[in-house]
Structure formats: C-alpha cells, structure tokens
C-alpha cells in the first residue's frame, strides 16, 4: 500500500507573463527524504503550490495513477497529499490537541462534527509521541516555540495519515538541536511515506537528503544524490554567487 510515487512531469506556472516554473520534472518515492533546493526565486515553493492546487499550473503531477493538477485544494488533500508552510501556520487560538483533532477530523462523518470531543484519538497520541509534543497537549498553539509549531504541523499531517508530505522550509529558524531532531523525525516518517522537503539550508540537506533536485530560475539544474549534485559544476556556479543566502535563511 505504500507503493505509489509522486511523479511531476513538465510542470509550468506563469504569473501574468512571468514564468515562475518552466517545465520542471522530478519524482519522489516512499522511503526517501527527497529535497528540492535552489536559490531565492528558483520556483521551489511554487512547485509545491502547484502540486497542492494553490496555484494553477500545466503539465502533470501524479500520485500513482491519480492526476492532481486541476483538482480543488481540499480534494487533493483528501487524496493524501499534505503540506506545511514557510511560516508555520497552526491555529494559534486553539490548543495542540484541538489542532490535531481538526486534522484528524478529515475522515470523520460531518454529522459527528456537531458533537463535542470525548477522549483523544489514538492516531493523535501516536503523532504526539512521534513529534515529541505529548507534554504540550493543552497548550494553545500560539505560544508554542517556533520549532514546536513546525512539528505540530508535521504531526497534523501524520494524524491525517498523509501519503505525501510536502514540507516548505521546515527547519528555518530552528536551533541546531531542533534541526537534528527534525531531520531524524523526517527519516523516521519517510519509511512509509513520501517526504519532499523544500530547503535553503545546505547543511541540513547534506545530512538528511536521500536524493536532491536543484532548481534554478524555474528549471531543473541538476538531480541526483547529495554527492552527485554537489559535484555538478553548474550547481557550484549558481551557488557560489549566492552562498550567503543559502546558509542564512
């Protein structure tokens, strides 16, 4: 059941004549932590936006046999594609439990929404343990640390049992320890799922990536393992000029 792969073919996105993504192809399989990197404006986030239905695009993005492009956002999610955002976006006024419960509600019948919650879903407990948030069950999400918010977002996707996790700069603003914890978390959950990470942080990428796709000005510059990509002279050329920007983030 974990067999389906995410295959993106010739993805194109235009904004009023400006080509943000110009024919990008890549794929991601269960079991790997897949990275999408590139300098600012390379079109990384736009790729995710397109796959999740936020931005209109042409080309193809398939999960197994299912074409995703052209579907409504919430219907794509219901196919098992979940994402996080550059700036952690959780429901600040609600507690961690409430946040996760909403995520878990995806597959509940709508009538059950009218009842109050009783007890905690087993899937929520598992996700809490996985992300180390068990102690924060009743904390309002708004007062979580930045790293915790990112983990909460990931936990929400786990609760939903998403087949594909598209993570947009999950370690931005995190401490070194938090980065390591996040990386390990990603490796754990990637065992059964597709994990695609958009990142600026080259160090993080080097430590945890299984395979990498480098984007530059809306096109694929290079693709392969970390070592292969680092060895690519084109990548070196692009990144030398913007080395500061890469590690800063």
């Amino acid at each position: 059941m974990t067999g389906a792969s995410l295959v993106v073919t010739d993805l194109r996105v235009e904004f009023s004549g400006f080509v943000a993504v110009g024919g990008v192809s890549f794929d991601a399989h269960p079991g790997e932590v897949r990275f999408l990197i590139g300098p600012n404006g390379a079109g990384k986030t736009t790729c995710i936006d397109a796959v999740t239905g936020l931005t209109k695009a042409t080309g193809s993005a398939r999960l197994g046999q299912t074409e995703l492009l052209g579907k409504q956002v919430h219907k794509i999610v219901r196919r098992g594609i979940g994402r996080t955002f550059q700036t952690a976006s959780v429901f600040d006024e609600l507690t961690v439990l409430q946040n996760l419960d909403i995520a878990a509600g995806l597959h509940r019948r709508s009538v059950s929404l009218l009842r109050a919650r009783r007890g905690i879903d087993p899937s929520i407990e598992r996700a809490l343990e996985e992300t180390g948030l068990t102690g924060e069950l009743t904390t309002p999400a708004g007062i979580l640390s930045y790293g915790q918010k990112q983990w909460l977002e990931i936990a929400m996707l786990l609760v939903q049992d998403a087949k594909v996790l598209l993570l947009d700069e999950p370690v931005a603003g995190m401490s070194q320890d938090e980065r390591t914890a996040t990386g390990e978390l990603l490796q754990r959950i990637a065992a059964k799922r597709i994990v695609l990470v958009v990142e600026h942080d080259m160090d993080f990428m080097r430590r945890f990536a299984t395979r990498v796709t480098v984007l530059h000005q809306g096109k694929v510059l290079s693709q392969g393992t970390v070592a292969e990509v680092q060895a690519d002279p084109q990548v070196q050329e692009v990144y030398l000029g913007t080395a500061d920007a890469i590690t800063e983030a």
Partner: protein
Amino acid sequence: MDALIPQLLNGSAQGALLLLAALGLSLTFGQMGVINMAHGEFLMIGAFSAYLVQQVIAASDLSIPVALPVAFVVAGLFGLLLEVTIIRWMYRRPLDTLLVTVGVGLILQQAALQIFPSQGVPVEKPSWLDGQLTILGYAWPMRQLFTILLAAVCVAALSAWLKYTSFGRRIRATVHNRDLAETTGISTRTIDRLTFFVGSGLAGVAGVAASLIGGTNSQMGAQYIIPAFLVVAAGGIGQLKGTILAAWAVGVALAFFAYWTTGSLAQVLAFILVIVFLQLRPQGLFTVRTRSLA
C-alpha cells in the same frame, strides 16, 4: 430608442459623481486595505466647506472654483486626523476598521446636524453652469458636463500624481511590499498619512459636486458610501481604470433602469447587478496576478 442618448449622457454624469465618490475610497481601500465607512461623511464635509466658502465669497461664479481646493484640504485634514488618531492602530484589522469608521460616521453626521441648520444649507451653483448643451436633440445640463469634467480632472491628477511624483512612486512601492519599502528607507507612516489625506480630500471634492446636485445636509453622505464601495469592488482593488469603468457602468445602468422602471427599483436593480457581477468575478473587472500583491 429616443431615450438612448439622453440616458447615456445622464448616466455618464451619474457615473462621474459615483466615480468622484469612489476615487478616494479606491485609493484608501485599494492601496491601504482600509475600508473607511466615514467616507460619505467626508463627502458631506466637502459640501459644507463649499457652503462656508460661499459665506465668505458671495459671488458663486468664483466661490465654487475656490471651494474645490478648500473642500479637498478640509476633508483631507479630517481624514488625516482620522488616520493619525485611529486608523494607524488598525492596519492589521481591516474588518474592525470598517466598524470603527461606522462609528466615526455616526458622530460626524450628528455633529453636522447640530452645527448647521437642520434643514440643510444652500450651495449656489455658479451662473456659468446654467443652461444646457444640446446634443442630438437632448438638452444636456451644463452641471452634468461639469461633474464629468471634474471627475476627469481628478482622475488625471490622481494618476499623474501616482505615476510621476516621488510620493506616488513611494505609495506604489509601499502597496507592493510594505516591508521591503520600509527597508529601502521609505517612511511608510508618512505614506499612509498622505494616502489617507488625498483619499479623504477627494471625497471632499466629490462633496462639492454633490452639493450642486442634491441637498447639503447631515444625511447626504449616507447615500453614497455603499454604491461607491460597490464601484470600487467591481472595478478591482487598486485598479483606477477598473473603478472608472465600473462607475460609468453603474451610472448608466442606474439611468436606464430609472428610465425603464422607477427611481426606487433602479437602485435595487443596480445593486443586484453589481452583487451578481461580483459573484461571477469576485476579483473585479481588472486584476493583477502576482504573488506579492498586498
């Protein structure tokens, strides 16, 4: 269809007045995201300014040209005051701004009722606006022509100001990316204040035009705010050409509906038309598709 030309011309003039009322709203809402429900009362302030100018300069031939800049400045100053005291605290809460300005509007209305004669005051039309211009057999009132001309001048001045002056460029930069604008040394506070001053000032100018068409009293502003906002929404946020086209379309629609049905039904139909249009095109007539539009 002998009604075609008269209603088209008459509708254009109604549209021009709507445009004048909507222009400032388009600036403050479109550029700053602030919905100022007291905009109609700023229009009223402009009309009362015209009256006060006429108390000083009795000759109406001269007083109206003088009243236009005076109304602009007076209404603009009221707008500035509103921005400095209230709006500035609320840029992150657009819906709340809407309600706060409802309160401001209530207060201004009641103040006007108590300050000025309750029946309203006369604003005399200059004699050079007497008479009609006969176009294709329709005697077109000069005053309508004046409204259109005034609207055209305001649009031209506003777009030139936005396009060619450094202030205008800074406004556009702020609209585009507030944070970036700040880092490049633009004082967004100054820009906000100035935008609000100009937007409210334009309401004042619209008030002078309105004072030549209807009564000048405490209630006059209320009839303009909703149509003006609908015009801005239908035109597309921050889209000057959209606002112009929408105002004209609503004006002409009002004129034709009024001709075919009644004055009351015309209003209902025009509203419904805009609401249905916005349902079909929520982004308005014109829209810029970029990722970073604020």
